[in-house]
């Protein structure tokens, strides 16, 4: 058997889902008995059959990838419940196997995939999608690029309303239907606590978490997921702030970004200049703007 053929044959078996008792399936991907499928290319030894040797790799694959999903999406797990979450992860990994050299990117397609497979979250679909967005934004904010921060003196002589301010790549902006920031913080606190807790205490915590999810009411929030001193924070922002920042992120000039954001706002006309000034001051203090690029529009 040539190298490529052997690797395809083995990968198909290794990436095939395990049974409910976490063993290798009896049927191979091509419908034949897995025993003869494995025996075709793997030698048995005096202790293990070909099937059993292949099974070691099959199990390791699934344990490793499921553990990565569990680490990255504890919030979604709390929304779906342990069993449904695990079943969903298996279905997701079958449809969207890793195409990156790093497991960090394993969940990159989860939001769009979950959107196309509403059966996993059922009535909690909107909540599930929101928490996935937040957990993925958290990953992106954690190790996203940080560029040199804009200095105030750079703004003198800059082109007013045509100025194009660039947001730090690590800043993630979210428009959410549920206050999932609170939920995720609660889940993480639980996870930290349960590391040192008894089983009974963990069970009580789990019940409390299930109740918290069940009671979570829709409440449209806008969130900036960002970093301070390399720790990730969730900062709630106003709708208008979200609109300005989103427009800036898309490369819109300052004037147009502000104008569009304030269209239809409930902020009184006379209060708008002060509000906008305060927002920009906050964002600049948080280091959200990158140094100006040297292009004609900014000079």
């Amino acid at each position, binding site marked *: 058997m040539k190298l*490529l053929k052997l690797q395809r044959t083995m990968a198909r078996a290794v990436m095939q889902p395990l049974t409910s008792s976490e063993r290798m399936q009896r049927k191979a991907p091509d419908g034949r008995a897995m025993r003869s499928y494995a025996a075709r*290319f793997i030698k048995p030894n005096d*202790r293990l059959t070909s099937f059993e040797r292949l099974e070691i790799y099959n199990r390791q694959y699934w344990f490793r990838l499921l553990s990565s999903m569990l680490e990255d999406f504890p919030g979604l797990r709390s929304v779906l419940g342990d069993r449904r979450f695990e079943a969903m992860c298996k279905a997701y990994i079958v449809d969207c196997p890793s195409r990156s050299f790093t497991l960090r990117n394993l969940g990159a397609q989860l939001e769009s995939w979950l959107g196309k497979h509403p059966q996993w979250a059922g009535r909690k679909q909107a909540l599930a999608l929101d928490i996935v967005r937040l957990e993925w934004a958290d990953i992106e904010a954690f190790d996203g690029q940080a560029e040199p921060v804009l200095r105030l003196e750079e703004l003198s002589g800059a082109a007013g309303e045509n100025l194009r301010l660039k947001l730090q*790549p690590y800043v993630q902006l979210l428009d959410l239907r549920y206050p999932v920031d609170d939920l995720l913080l609660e889940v993480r606190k639980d996870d930290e606590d349960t590391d040192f807790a008894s089983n009974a205490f963990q069970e009580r915590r789990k019940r409390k978490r299930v109740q918290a999810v069940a009671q979570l009411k829709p409440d449209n929030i806008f969130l900036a997921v960002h970093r301070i001193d390399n720790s990730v924070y969730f900062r709630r922002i106003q709708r208008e702030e979200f609109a300005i920042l989103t427009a800036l992120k898309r490369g819109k000039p300052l004037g147009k970004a502000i104008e569009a954001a304030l269209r239809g706002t409930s902020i009184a006309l006379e209060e708008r200049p002060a509000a906008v000034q305060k927002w920009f001051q906050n964002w600049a203090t948080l280091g959200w703007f990158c140094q100006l690029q040297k292009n004609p529009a900014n000079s």
Partner: protein
Amino acid sequence: MPANRFNGFTDYGIGIGLRAPHYQHILTRKPVVDWFEIISENFMIDGGRPLQVLDEILEQYKVVQHGVSMYFGSAEKPNREHLRRLKELVKRTKTPWVSDHLCWGSVDGRYTHDLLPMPYTFEAAKITAQKVREVRDFLEVPVAVENVSSYAEFHVSEMTEWEFLNEVVERADCGILLDVNNIYVSSQNHSFDPVAYVSSIPAERIAQIHIAGHSKYRKYILDTHDHPVIDPVWKLYERAIQRAGHTATLLEWDDSIPSFQEVHNEALKANRFLSATLLATAV
């Protein structure tokens, strides 16, 4: 012998793997450690805390990069994005050499994130060596390939594992990261003589040695890196340094990670073998 062209003519001592649970201890206590090995993929990112920690470590310690997903033995071409990011990191760390495993793990663009065993064939050796050369030429640093622990063997194999390793490194003209724990694990799983393996390796190509612990099950052994090093593995280590000389040595401990001091103490046990070898060379 220890400083050779496969480890950038360096003469590193005993290092340990840089792992997140030890960051705080290392950055605040600044313990004396010869060098740290980092998992390249953990730092092939755009920014954030991991890179900040790495930069602080680099200010005070020597760092060598070790990868887990280059998959020299995969039949497909190297991933360009992977190579680009790896080279960026090489420039950042100034690692004297880069290592990754003699295994495969991806096919048709799909990654298993595992170190899957190679079929020991001449075709596989040729493909693997070509890839090692491509990676080394792109990165512009010496490359060392590490033997993996394995749990399966293939009907198509035409040679032993050590013959395959020799075939690859000779064709690629690259170094060896000799993992003596992996040799032990595979020798138990496949019933071969681990000493014969260590004795058959071209000693002049050994750039670095790995030591680690493993987990024993009823019918096989798993390479889990979650225990101290056992005596038979130390014996293999002793044999390896008798042949290769005072070689850069690294302890891997990746799961159930104990305190920094415990991990470092376990690594420093290598000193008794290194001292004995130096003494033997002197007399």
